[in-house]
């Protein structure tokens, strides 16, 4: 009973604290100055049609670097907690074979979903989408084939190689920006090109592809270590 009362007290305090913040949110009619600058100068400066992409990759590129680092640390934590004990057998219980319809459908669909993921992160500067979404789509394609072929194993060497190579290349491109352009993770190390084409917007497609590969391989790592059960 005392516990219930304390919980209610905590909630009431929380509501009193949060309510002024929420009631301050008024329906706006105009952009605030920072967003106005990004929207006005962004397309000419960076050449990217999707303004969210230009904010993520270049204007706030350092935040994205930190975010990728957090993702890497969380993946490493999952892999460390679920590491395979020495001497334990791999997959002792026998899993039920999936049906023929499912296997054929998976073999048809997995390459298509893979292609869709690559399309999403290559066109991140033109259409909605980008590295994070493309990586998630690739991870779900691999999840589909993991679910319908439960006996198969993922090659960890290739996964680690893709993940670390894309991370290193991302940093190298970021540092190249300091020497060849205005600052860290600046995309103008390559020519900006025609506005609205696939090969435009400088290094944004390259950076977003690297982020997509890194996010995709990290999420596959999380799903794979959760699927292997050694208990």
């Amino acid at each position, binding site marked *: 009973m005392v516990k219930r009362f304390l919980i209610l007290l905590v909630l009431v305090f929380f509501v009193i604290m949060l309510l002024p913040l929420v009631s301050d949110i008024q329906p706006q009619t105009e952009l605030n100055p920072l967003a106005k600058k990004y929207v006005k100068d962004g397309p000419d400066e960076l050449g990217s049609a*999707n303004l*969210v992409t230009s904010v993520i990759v270049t204007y706030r590129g350092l935040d994205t670097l930190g975010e990728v680092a957090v993702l890497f640390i969380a993946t490493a934590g999952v892999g460390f907690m679920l590491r395979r004990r020495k001497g334990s057998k791999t997959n002792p219980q026998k899993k039920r074979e999936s049906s023929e319809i499912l296997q054929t459908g998976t073999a048809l669909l997995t390459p298509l979903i893979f292609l869709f993921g690559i399309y999403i992160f290559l066109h991140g500067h033109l259409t*909605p*989408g*980008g590295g*994070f*979404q493309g990586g*998630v*789509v690739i*991870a*779900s394609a691999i*999840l589909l084939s993991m679910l319908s072929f439960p006996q198969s194993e993922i090659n960890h060497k290739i996964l680690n190689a893709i993940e670390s190579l894309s991370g290193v290349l991302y940093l190298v491109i970021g540092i190249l920006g300091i020497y060849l352009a205005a600052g860290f993770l600046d995309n103008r190390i390559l020519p900006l090109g025609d506005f609205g084409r696939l090969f435009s917007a400088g290094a944004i497609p390259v950076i977003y592809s690297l982020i997509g590969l890194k996010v995709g391989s990290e*999420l596959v790592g*999380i*799903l794979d270590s*959760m*699927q292997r*059960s050694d*208990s």
Partner: protein
Amino acid sequence: MINGIIIVLGIIMIASAFMAIYMRSLLSSIIAAGVISLLASIIYLLLAAPDVAMTEAAIGSGLTTVVFLYAFNKVKGRGEDNHG
């Protein structure tokens, strides 16, 4: 029109939040938590943020539910009843 859709979606979302907390079966609460994310992605689309809608639809309702189900599969009842 948009306000009406958002009100209906919001009511369903809050109802499924209560379902996710108070369902007896753990599996049902995992599914209800996935429903919240799926409806949130529709709201993002109505709020003119298609990038966020794509991410939420793929991650919130897809991969998060799968991760929850893998964990549920590892802890579910071995002998005793752990569904509560």
